[in-house]
């Protein structure tokens, strides 16, 4: 445990000093503010840009399809933004997490000091998990309180929290994909391309109704549902499948790293 904590401490110092955590924090915070703001002022923004007659037509259409935006849209828009750009930023920040150490030669120095392959991978994942927990929960809190300021209505606090935990699991799945490709790839470009392609594959599969219900990527819609007070019958299965997928990805990373010559 001592080696694990020491190496995890190194990882934490690394994401702090290389500003990776700060960048992710800023990216998520930008969406935490823009989500509720767009939900509240979208119509006003469009009104400023559109002639009055066209705006009236649009308002009629909005009325037909469900009316004005509500505080629910505030959360939905936030999740829509962070699901794409937030995950993308997370994968970019961590795509070299193992590969950089192999290329720089620090991986071999750490192994020579008694860091096991499993410790090497799991300590990195643990720090990513804690960092992303802070980022996701903090940005969800900002969404929640900013929504209250703008709409004077919010979802129950517990729903917001469960939703953000579900989304955290979704982020961890993609972070573990980054760790996996960072272990497998020989170059940073290979790692980046593989991670991004995988992200889009899951995104496209997510558009196919039915199939997505049994993939880890379903945790994004589940997060939105939980936040808005709905719960799918498949939620427990989705959580278990996502945890299993993360476990398989990390296990494979450790196995591959053990076989690799440094």
């Amino acid at each position, binding site marked *: 445990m*001592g*080696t694990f904590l*020491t*190496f995890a401490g*190194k990882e934490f*110092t*690394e994401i702090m*000093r*290389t500003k990776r955590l700060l960048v992710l924090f800023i990216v998520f915070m930008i969406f935490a503010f823009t989500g509720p703001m767009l939900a509240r002022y979208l119509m006003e923004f469009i009104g400023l840009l559109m002639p009055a007659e066209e705006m009236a037509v649009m308002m009629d259409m909005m009325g037909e399809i469900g009316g004005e935006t509500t505080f629910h849209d505030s959360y939905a828009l936030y999740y829509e933004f962070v699901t794409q750009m937030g995950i993308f930023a997370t994968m970019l920040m961590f795509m070299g997490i193992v590969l950089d150490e192999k*290329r*720089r*030669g*620090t991986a*071999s*120095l*750490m*192994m*020579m*000091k*008694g*860091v*096991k*392959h499993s410790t090497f991978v799991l300590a990195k994942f643990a720090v990513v998990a804690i960092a992303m927990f802070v980022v996701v929960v903090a940005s969800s809190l900002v969404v929640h309180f900013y929504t209250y300021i703008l709409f004077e209505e919010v979802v129950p606090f517990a729903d917001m929290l469960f939703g953000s935990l579900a989304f955290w699991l979704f982020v961890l799945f993609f972070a573990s994909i980054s760790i996996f490709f960072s272990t497998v790839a020989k170059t940073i470009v290979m790692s980046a391309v593989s991670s991004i392609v995988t992200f889009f594959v899951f995104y496209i599969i997510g558009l196919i109704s039915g199939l997505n219900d049994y993939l880890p990527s379903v945790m994004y819609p589940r997060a939105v549902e939980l936040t808005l007070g709905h719960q799918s019958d498949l939620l427990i299965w989705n959580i278990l499948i996502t945890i299993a997928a993360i476990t398989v990805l990390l296990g494979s990373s450790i196995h591959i790293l*053990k076989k690799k*010559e*440094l």
Partner: protein
Amino acid sequence: MSQKMAVETFGLTKRFKTALAVDSINLQVPAGAICGFLGKNGAGKTTTIKMLTGLKRPTSGEFAIMGKKEQFGKGIGTVGYLPDVPGFYGYMTGFEFLMLCAKLAKVPDNQQKSHVEGLLKQVGLFGVKTKTSGYSRGMRQRLGIAQALINNPSVVFLDEPISALDPMGRRDVMEIIGELKGTTVVFSTHILSDVENICDYIIIIEKGKIMEQDTLEGLKARYLISDTQIEFYNDKDCADFITRVQQKADMDIAKLDPMRISVKSQKMDDVEISKLVSTTIADLAIPFKSFGVQAPTLDDIFYEVTK
């Protein structure tokens, strides 16, 4: 009583896809030796060292460190290692990096700071506050040596620790290595003059095969042939001397220029050659400008072994 070996290999082999990098080597490094591991670029030095540190998987064969068989992928606690291009965490200072290494290497908590400071003093980096990303090559090599020593290893492998350094940096690093007496040091290089100054044991590898391994004295005794050089005042004296001396003994005589020759013999030592040369000059009653025995160097052995 047989000498204890710090490093031993038994048919250690490494084959890459199309090339045999290390070919069934059986090397032995005595405990406490400072061993120069010599070879041309691509001879197999780095691959061998990486196998001996458990970082590369041997295709076949085994190796032992301090008498214990070791394996690929298992941490070898008794070993320190400096890679050919040492990498550090650029956002850390040298002190922070060594403290991390000390914690991972399980140096007792109450000794970590003093141990790290001691090592920084030893390599001349004590008090340097710069982040390692701002280190020069020489500073990186010195920090690399310090991290290799953090766990008080029985054997230290240093891969090309001086090759990329300027003369001052080279001298500093060689001094540090020279001060490691008591610890077995294996360091690879192709700068032979430096090796000769501090090494007491030499291994020469060529095309993946161990060509020689012995003490420096042992190698010199076996390989070095005295090179006696004489310079005359004119061509005729030089030619007369060659004719006469070849009548007396079977010698290799090479003309270095029209009035200067080199005399070597497989069968005679320095003293015998000197006697023969001086009596021949006396017989002929010819004057000479200079007469001397060239000091043999490790370069000569290396060229002889790898030619």
